[in-house]
């Protein structure tokens, strides 16, 4: 099936002073997918998202829904909702004032849906955003975002600092209330375990470079975890894995599924395993 791209990026480079935050990024993001943007802290995830929206000056070409983005254009937000850290809501407004403000400036606001979501939450309209807990702020952010009829949703570490319950609830709500096959969600996170089940595609970013963009199921078929007793460590080392992990008298590594190692236990890798294998970690080659 040929899918139309919602975002097309060519030669995207971004410097902060002399530091190269994005290095010649080339990527095409198809419509109707849930995509995870995974990278270490400082890998360039937030910079990438902010460049896409025109918030940062950059070199290279960006197209969103067919429109070139050179600098920040407010019209882009007619079709794209962006949730950065949930703490970015305006603390000085109340819940109702926030809703009234967003509804008045967004032509795609669905008031019926907003009222439904408000009724199902325990948000009090007259409560100041400053007095909301982080979990409640998340609910408010979700409420105002899900009440907008946009085609692309960009989430930049949206659940940072939230406890596990709210993190799960956040992603379940996004999936249940927002996603359909015409909509695209890009989630930047390093808490990959919670989104692994909902993602369809994955993008690995490291040191400002896109090192992988792949369908998750395909990716998981390509790699397997091979586990052998510690005294057979060399069997793994022969295949040059980036990381060999030690666990209870055994060692394991992510290797190409086609590899054959006698007496090795083979299991399916998680996204974290694949990420560590591709990007490496602090305990690389130990």
């Amino acid at each position, binding site marked *: 099936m040929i899918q139309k791209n919602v975002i097309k990026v060519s030669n995207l480079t971004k410097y902060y002073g002399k530091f190269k935050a994005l290095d010649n990024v080339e990527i095409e993001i198809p419509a109707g997918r849930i995509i995870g943007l995974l990278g270490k802290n400082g890998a360039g995830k937030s910079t990438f998202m*902010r460049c896409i*929206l025109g*918030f*940062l*000056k950059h070199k290279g070409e960006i197209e969103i829904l067919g429109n070139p983005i050179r600098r*920040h254009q*407010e*019209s*882009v*937000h*007619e079709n794209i*909702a*962006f949730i*950065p850290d949930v*703490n*970015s*809501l*305006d*603390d*000085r*407004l109340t819940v109702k*004032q926030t809703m*009234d*403000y*967003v509804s*008045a*400036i*967004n*032509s795609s606001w669905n008031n019926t849906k907003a009222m439904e979501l408000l009724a199902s939450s325990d948000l009090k309209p007259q409560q100041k955003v400053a007095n909301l807990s982080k979990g409640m702020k998340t609910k408010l952010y979700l409420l105002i975002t899900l009440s907008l009829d946009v085609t692309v949703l960009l989430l930049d570490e949206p659940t940072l600092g939230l406890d596990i319950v709210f993190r799960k609830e956040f992603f379940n709500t996004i999936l249940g209330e927002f996603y359909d096959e015409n909509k695209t969600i890009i989630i930047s996170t390093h808490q990959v375990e919670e989104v692994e089940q909902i993602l369809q595609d994955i993008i690995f970013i490291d040191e400002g470079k896109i090192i992988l963009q792949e369908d998750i199921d395909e990716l998981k078929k390509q790699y397997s975890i091979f586990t052998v007793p510690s005294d057979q460590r060399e069997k793994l080392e022969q295949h040059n894995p980036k990381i060999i992990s030690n666990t209870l008298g055994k060692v394991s590594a992510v290797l190409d599924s086609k590899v054959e190692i006698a007496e090795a236990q083979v299991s399916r890798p998680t996204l974290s395993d694949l990420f560590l294998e591709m990007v490496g970690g602090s305990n690389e080659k130990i």
Partner: protein
Amino acid sequence: MKKFKALLIKDLQINKKTLMIPLWITAGFYLLILLISAVAYLSGDLNFNFADIQGTPPSESINYIVNIAIMGLPGLISLIFIIILTQGALNENIRNNSELFHRSQPVSIWYQSASRYIVGIAGNWLALFTIAIFNFIVIAIILAVTDKFIFGLAISGMAQSVISFMKTGIIIGSLTFFCSAIFKDKAFLQGLAIIVGVQFLFIILNALMQWHLPLPLNYIIKLINVATPSGMDNELVNENIVYYIREAWMRIVINWNTLLQIGVSGVLFVTATLIYKSREIK
């Protein structure tokens, strides 16, 4: 227009408390006067007699003079609050960590900037005007009791005083708004420090090198300097008060300086918005 209205409402909601402070200060003054009067009355020290006003020259022009004089302090307070609001106009969202939220809305940056500019300046004008109306009513009542109230003279005094401060407010507010586009913290003080610094540098260079560099502070003071209703003294008598008021209108409003002030304010707003627009949002 619906979007701009929403922005104005939002900015008013955010700054409501700050905009109300001049009103509360004025209310506090009135309360204090009432309290002092009540205490003096109860202790038998209150010997005020409305008839005392009689014979105080100039008897009719007091309508004009008192309405001007009473707006002095509220006018200065209004200027201070214009500075407070405009110096944070383009930075407050960054400090509040909500810049990304506001910039991620489908609304023009010009609308956003204009809304903050209007609330910072016109919001304070509105507060000043409210105080002026209240003061006018109080003075009208006092003068009416003594049969001295003349509406035309009184309203001229009030209007000229308010307009003078409005004009000073727009230029100071625009300068501070411009500074807020350049400096992210304590914009007014930083802007002032640079202007004063350049002023001293130019004075020294002019003295040492025999140059004639223009002094920025002088231009700004000239621009801010509104021909306030001044020059009144005890010689001002009822016969020439009407002439004086007419002449004051010319000095305060109908002149080239007013046009220059509006023009410079517009240029400062546009420049500030362009700088704000070009900022990266990290």
